[in-house]
């Protein structure tokens, strides 16, 4: 059977790739994609710990991921609406150009 460690390693790799997207891309949508990937990695960790944990009858991991998916859906909707608003205003989604509030 597959061990918990292998699932955690896949999840860590998923998280690192999402972080790389957030840090290296110059496009607000790509940053949002990176955030979603990191969130997926965290959800995968929850389910893996639930599967290999001590008390799986309590369904804590499953329920937490269920709520997490709902929050992520709301976050994506609001984030994409913000990107649309910013695009309408600046005609660009390059986050380096959103510098009006710079001191």
């Amino acid at each position: 059977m597959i061990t918990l460690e292998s699932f955690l390693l896949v999840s860590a790799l998923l998280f690192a790739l999402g972080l790389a997207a957030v840090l290296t891309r110059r496009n607000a949508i790509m940053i949002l994609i990176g955030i979603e990937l990191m969130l997926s990695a965290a959800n995968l960790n929850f389910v893996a710990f639930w599967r290999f944990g001590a008390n799986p009858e309590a369904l804590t991991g499953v329920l937490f991921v269920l709520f997490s998916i709902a929050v992520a859906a709301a976050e994506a909707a609001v984030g994409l609406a913000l990107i649309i608003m910013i695009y309408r205003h600046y005609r660009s989604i390059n986050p380096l150009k959103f510098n009006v509030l710079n001191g």
Partner: protein
Amino acid sequence: MITDAAFIAFAVLGIVTLGATLGAVAMRDPVHCGLALALAFCGVGGFYILLGAEFLGFIQLLVYVGAVAVLIMFVILLTRRPDSGQDTNSRGFWSALAGSGVALGVFAVLAVAISRSPSIQTATPADPEASIAAIGRMLVSSHLLPLKMIGVLLTVALIGGVLGAMQEGGKLER
């Protein structure tokens, strides 16, 4: 040979998910990135099913692949400009290198922590039961307040999305 089948499924899912994720992170055209992201979400849903949480796997497919990835594709296409060159999609070479280095360092720290953690047991427990009936019963009994809060949150996000889609004068944009 259940074990072999599970291992093959894990290997295939891992290759597909991580390959699609790498594509979503590294490809130049945002449209390709969005499509690869949908595939990566499918792979994560497959992991859920492999872990015994079938309900979550299908929810993942419905919400992430069916809604979030499609929404991201819509926004990618709506914010596409014909005059924006490909070079604006990623930063310069050195900052990309620095970002990748930070991400690699985070992965190295996580991998060391995972491999050295004493609390990770090697024995696999029996398959836990995560039936939809049990999840539903817990949602309306012990997790009733979070469920209602999620309802409120989704309503607020819906209103916020509609307000965001409106013009500044308050009219819906044509």
